[in-house]
């Protein structure tokens, strides 16, 4: 008890002293520190002239952060990075899928049959687990191996803080913190990483806004879905010469729409449940630094690409197993999957989607990367068309046109594609992100809000689009 008394004495003393020294205590201390710092610098630093890289930096900044060129340049850079990703990923993707799916998969099937595996075991392991993993590698690895290094080069160059600078006034207007631009950018790679990055935001209110709205940044698990659907359906609407520019614009459009929703919900939250003042902050614009090119490529491949790929594989394997099981276990005369699909078809139609797509989004909660293979597999099973490796098998089709044929056979129209692209942007975060949100907020309530809010937005938007579309066409 003596210790508590002593502690109380210290607090009492400090209260008394605080009374004596007055309110300016903090300012006095800060001023004293700055005065000391200025004195030391005066004695030790010689600035010869203002020349040097500062001048060049200022020139670059006058363009990059200008009112006229700032935003177009941002869109152009985003489009350019995506264009390189789409073009560059095509060939390695085709090579990987022909290797993993046309060569290794039949080989595994034959080997397991030769060893004498029962059909259900080889089906479960080879058609479920292996194929899910192979698909994720074939589809995910090439775009990530291009997108991440390019993004990292921009980051090392010093572009991200300029993005934050450009968007600061928009964030301010929506009642959010300007540093949210940085966490939003991280979200374009991975939402879980974006949520962790919100620690740079001091105010708990603004940090919550940043966490809840991070999911509106299209993450790398969703880029391939957007790119694939835009290529198949949007690119086909226009003459062939313009098809790649049309699909690219559609993908950039979805990403920009995501940013719009991010601002809208930030604004809505700050006007309702998360009211408060916008805090001011200093953001240093760091000097532009020429990235150490090969080192950056190497570290971003090792640190980001492989880690994210590994995560996708870890989630794809059990998901593949689940898909195989629900497609091969029957209740009555239909598989579990067919029951689920049919029960959700009605609701799906209202949203301009279908039961297959909704079921795929439930199966793919662990990882957005596996949405498309799940959709393809379920479509084949429900429509009974013979393509790929057949019922209950997740597969990749070598050419984009074969994928298109399956989807069209499954009743897909341009409306379905547009609404899947919208729903891919506006649905719950993946389970890793949800867990990360819980860890960061330590609040069940906010975790639920962050998970449900985008789904509701997705339902509303796809519903509206479907109704308007059906009235017009």
């Amino acid at each position, binding site marked *: 008890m003596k210790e508590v008394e002593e502690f109380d004495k210290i607090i009492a003393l400090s209260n008394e002293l605080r009374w004596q020294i007055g309110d300016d205590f903090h300012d006095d201390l800060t001023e004293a520190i700055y005065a000391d710092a200025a004195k030391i610098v005066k004695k030790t630093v010689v*600035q010869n002239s203002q020349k040097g890289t500062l001048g060049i930096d200022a020139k670059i900044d006058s363009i990059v952060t200008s009112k006229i060129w700032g935003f177009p340049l941002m869109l152009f850079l985003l489009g350019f990075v995506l264009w390189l990703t789409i073009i560059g990923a095509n060939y390695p993707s085709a090579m990987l899928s022909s290797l993993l799916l046309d060569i290794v998969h039949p080989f595994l099937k034959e080997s397991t049959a030769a060893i004498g595996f029962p059909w259900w075991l080889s089906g479960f392991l080879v058609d479920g687990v292996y194929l899910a993993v192979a698909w994720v590698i074939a589809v995910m690895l090439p775009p990530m191996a291009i997108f991440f290094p390019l993004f990292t080069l921009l980051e090392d160059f010093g572009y991200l803080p300029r993005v934050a600078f450009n968007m600061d006034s928009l964030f301010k207007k929506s009642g959010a913190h300007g540093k949210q631009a940085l966490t939003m950018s991280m979200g374009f790679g991975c939402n879980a990483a974006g949520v962790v990055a919100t620690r740079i935001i*001091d105010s708990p209110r603004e940090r919550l806004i940043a966490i809840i709205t991070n999911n509106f940044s299209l993450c790398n698990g969703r880029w391939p879905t957007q790119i694939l659907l835009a290529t198949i359906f949007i690119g086909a609407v226009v003459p062939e010469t313009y098809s790649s520019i049309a699909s690219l614009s559609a993908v950039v459009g979805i990403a920009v729409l995501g940013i719009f929703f991010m601002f809208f919900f930030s604004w809505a939250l700050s006007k309702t449940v998360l009211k408060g003042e916008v805090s001011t902050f200093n953001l240093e614009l760091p000097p532009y630094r020429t990235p150490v090119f090969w080192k950056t490529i190497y570290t971003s491949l090792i640190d980001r690409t492989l880690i994210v790929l590994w995560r996708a594989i870890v989630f794809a394997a059990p998901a593949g197993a689940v898909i195989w099981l629900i497609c091969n276990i029957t209740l009555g005369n239909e598989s579990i999957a067919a029951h689920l699909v049919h029960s959700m078809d009605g609701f799906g139609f209202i949203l301009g989607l279908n039961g297959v797509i909704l079921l795929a989004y439930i199966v793919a909660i662990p990882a957005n990367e596996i949405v498309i293979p799940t959709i393809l597999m379920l479509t084949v099973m429900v429509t009974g068309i013979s393509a790929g490796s057949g019922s209950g098998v997740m597969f990749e089709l070598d050419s984009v046109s074969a994928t298109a044929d399956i989807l069209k056979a499954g009743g897909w129209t341009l409306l379905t594609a547009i609404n899947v692209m919208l729903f891919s942007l506006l649905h719950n975060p993946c389970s890793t992100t949800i867990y990360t949100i819980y860890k960061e907020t330590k609040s069940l309530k906010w975790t639920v809000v962050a998970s449900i809010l985008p789904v509701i937005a997705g339902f509303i938007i796809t519903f509206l689009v479907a109704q308007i579309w059906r009235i017009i066409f």
Partner: protein
Amino acid sequence: MKTTPKSACETCAHHSLDAVKKLGVDITNVDFVIALAGNPNTGKSTVFNALTGLRQHTGNWPGKTVTRAEGAFEYNQKKFKLIDLPGTYSLMSRSEDEEVARNFILFGKPNVTIIVVDASRLERNLNLTLQILEITNNAVLCLNLMDEAQKNNIQIDTRSLSKELGIPVVATSARSKEGIPELIATISDVALGKIICKPHKIKNIPPQLEEAIKKLSTAIQNQYPTVSNSRWLAFRVLEGDVHIIEALKTGNFS
């Protein structure tokens, strides 16, 4: 690669990199704990990587590191554990990243704290440096990004800077690994007590305030004889920092 003639220091055995072993994440049985602090975007993570051989992701924007990263290296048969703290402008505010940094320097009792500063922006960076020197006695100033400072025609007299701050100053360009061997040797010397620091304490404080701080820090020192930075604790208690007050109440400084 530019080849420069070796200076006398570089050929000296004391500075030889042969005695350095990068241990990555192997942080068992360490002899010394070293904290790496500094303003955002001064290259802390790059210094961290250069010392440990790890590839902690670096990026050219303030706030890249939000959690602490750990790694280790060995020098002259002594093992050093290195902790990369989130970059902060000050230790006096309450955001989560700043608290991670502050609590570690204050309660983690590192043997040496490396303060990484941007040589081109020394004055602004000294704000944090002077605050850290209030908390801890054993520190090394890593004057990083010297290559950029030279490009901007900024000259820094490292010897008088060292004298002013009362701690060793090492000029580095961590991206090209320049100055890293000297930094390692200096860290080791401070950890082993071969270099004794006499850190600068904040001057220019109004006399009335100085007196109040003295009274309070004496009271704290009497009650908690083990704390080494009662003066800083007094500053914080006076400011009504709830975390520090809680720590004093529970006597739990970890």
